[in-house]
């Protein structure tokens, strides 16, 4: 059975209106609320899940996308285990901004090794037929930016939402396994102590 449950912090970043809050709500409550407010400040929700025999509590942080509120959201980047870069396939601008979002994240999250930090890219609103960003373009960017996994999602009809979040967990766990082999030391988990105190490792 799963031996430990860890807390894993993922953060949703992307332009205002691309569907970050909708994705989070879809994933955590399996609902799509068309009457949702735009986000002011920061919010987070927890979701328990099991991935490859690991019990994980995912803490999903949702932020406001507007430029003006940058200084409000950036302090929350720190300690993230994974960053979900989100754009909307019907909004070219939001796609072009991915590079900025990634930069902003790396800078403020104080990522030690940006090369190996797990990013997952989400192209949301695939249920909309008038696309401004093609799948190929999106794949291209992901490949060129460090081989990030890419998911085309729809918070509205639930397409690929769970898959994207689960991939995020897998990426984090994979990195952890690697570092566990390198250093058999608890300090790796400084920011993530085992949640339950059942037998370790």
């Amino acid at each position, binding site marked *: 059975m799963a031996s430990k449950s860890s807390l894993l912090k993922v953060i949703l970043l992307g332009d205002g209106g691309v569907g970050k809050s909708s994705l989070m709500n879809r994933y955590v409550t399996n609902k799509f609320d068309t009457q949702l407010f735009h986000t002011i*400040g920061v919010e987070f929700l927890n979701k328990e899940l099991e991935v490859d025999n690991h019990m994980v509590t995912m803490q999903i942080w949702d932020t406001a996308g507007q430029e003006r509120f940058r200084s*409000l959201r950036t*302090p929350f980047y720190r300690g993230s285990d994974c960053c979900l870069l989100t754009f909307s396939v019907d909004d070219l601008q939001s796609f072009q901004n991915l590079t900025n979002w990634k930069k902003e994240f790396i800078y403020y999250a104080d990522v030690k090794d940006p090369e190996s930090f797990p990013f997952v890219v989400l192209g949301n609103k695939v249920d909309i037929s008038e696309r401004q960003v093609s799948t190929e373009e999106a794949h291209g960017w992901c490949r060129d930016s460090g081989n990030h996994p890419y998911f085309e999602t729809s918070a509205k009809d639930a397409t690929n939402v769970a898959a994207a979040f689960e991939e995020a967990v897998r990426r984090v766990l994979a990195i952890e396994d690697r570092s566990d082999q390198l250093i058999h030391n608890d300090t790796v988990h400084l920011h993530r102590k085992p*949640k339950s105190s059942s037998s370790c490792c």
Partner: protein
Amino acid sequence: MAAPVTGKVVYDQEGVFIHSSCGKLEDQDSLIPGTLRVVEKDMEVIVDWRPLEETLDSSNILCAVKDSSSVVEWNQSPKERNNGGPEHQNSYEAEWDMINAVSFKKRQFTNGGVQSPINIQSKWSFLFSLTDLKSIKQNKEGMGWSYFVFCLKDDVILPALHFHQGGSELLLECLEKYVVLCESEQDSRILLVDCQNRSLSQSFENLHEEPTDSLLQKFKKDPYTATMVNFSKVTNFLVDTIRGTDPLTHRRPPQEIADFLNDAMPDLKINQQEESGFEVITRIDVGTRPEVHRREPVSTAEWESNMDSLGRIRNVDHLKHIIFKGGLCHALRKEAWKYLLGYFPWDSTREERSQLQKRKADEYFRMKLQWKSVSEEQEKRNSRLRDYRSLIEKDVNRTDRTNKFYEGQDNPGLILLHDILMTYCMYDFDLGYVQGMSDLLSPVLYVMENEVDAFWCFVSYMDEMHQNFEEQMQGMKTQLVQLSTLLRLLDSSFCSYLESQDSGYLYFCFRWLLIRFKREFSFHDILRVWEVMWTDLPCQNFHLLICCAILESEKKKIMDGGFGFNEILKHINELSMKLDVNDVLCKAEAISLQMMKCKDLPPAVCEVLGLTDNTSAPACDLAEDYVVRKHYQNSTPPNNPVPALPPNGTRGNSSLKRLPNSVHTPTSAW
């Protein structure tokens, strides 16, 4: 009552110091040597610390006794200090040391009110029964001598005791004969009395492995946060941390951090006066809180009875007062809000108002035409307009969509919301549209049911809220600092708690302040909250007292639950739609009365609440705004009791000097 503690002494240790530092950098620390004893007496076990000089004379002891109601004040002058004791240069003062001797809540002072002047140090004496002990915070091992901070069950935090001559281990051994001490799961340096207290939620993780370090990180990383953290105490804390030589927290070159802090300092003007004082000294009794009742909403008949034959409003002060006390009945809002927001002058005649409305309608449509007539081609070359439009379109679709005025697909309410926001961009192109503005407009439009009136009322509202939305969000920073100033006066133990959880900068109040509680109350209730706030009664910045009222109501849950950074944020976010509007307004009003009656309000608090006389120091930016708006409304200032400054209340830089006037100060040494 403060008789010497007699009984069986089971522990007796000399050389236990209190560092009564004011947290100032260059200042030498004041070290007060004393003796710590544990005494078995009757059925109780008493822990007793008193300074050296009076170890034999225990007639001047402040005694923290259970079930008591009056106030103990810990006043201590930085000038009178004992410079004896070990060198302090290798101080490891960690985060808890910053609160050495903060937060003495209401407790019995055994000698009653006023005491004869005695040795200043005797004020630091304390004793408590072991049954009142909640936790002990220890410093980390291997850092010279140990120190302990005792926290009592009602969250009184006693001054840190430094065991310069050892003996801390023995003390723990001794105490463990009477109580069970167990390590806190959240912080291994905290020993909790009884394990019942361990119900600390495990569902969240503390993101920050080392609070001190992470706070520094934040300072380092983000100037904006840094300025938000500009409360004197946190600043002192940082200064302490910089000075401190805790090898573990000392990862960054001190100079780097100091420079950084200096960058952040200019924003600190509001609290600067208190900076020199450090909270320890500025603990003030704010007196008892009166009971407050609200009245029924102002009716149309009441409103009309205050209007003369030409349609001018008489008794403006009275009207504002009853609006403050009860709000408005809904039918009246459409008219009364125009006055409250400053669109209609109170003393205008019916005729003048109809002229005004005509003029304003022309002006509105002229501006509306400006963006309406921008062609697609033009807009392609105008990225700012394009961006504003795109943001507005996105947000209009996500504002109060459950309200029947804005629900459904092609609701005319949505179009009006959109058009007014677009026109506002033309009115103030520099600001344009910032998220949050749609929340402020929506209720106004809902009440006005008229595009032009809604626009101009919104313009007035935005005059007040403008700073919140500006590039640097100065308004938000200012308000967070101001809120902290108020909260610290009202409840420093809660403030200390928040700071210990990295939440001292009140981040979690951001949404409250940005859009004036719009998302916290139901649509119906926010109409009430806003009209009450717009009366500008009973003092400036009443909305900050609303924040205090809500925070106070949540304090217990937060502290009892041992909520950390994340949990506090989540808890506050989730209060949305659960607050009782009448409770909150009553409490906030009661706090305002309590403060206005208090004779010893620190200058910073007076300034925030606008309780200053004309001769006082220059007003801060926000206060100026306030005056401007008042002027605009063309109304006389409310005829409200505005407490004068204390007799010798020179609004000088040192709040220290003023403090001794506190009637409740047990020591009248001054």
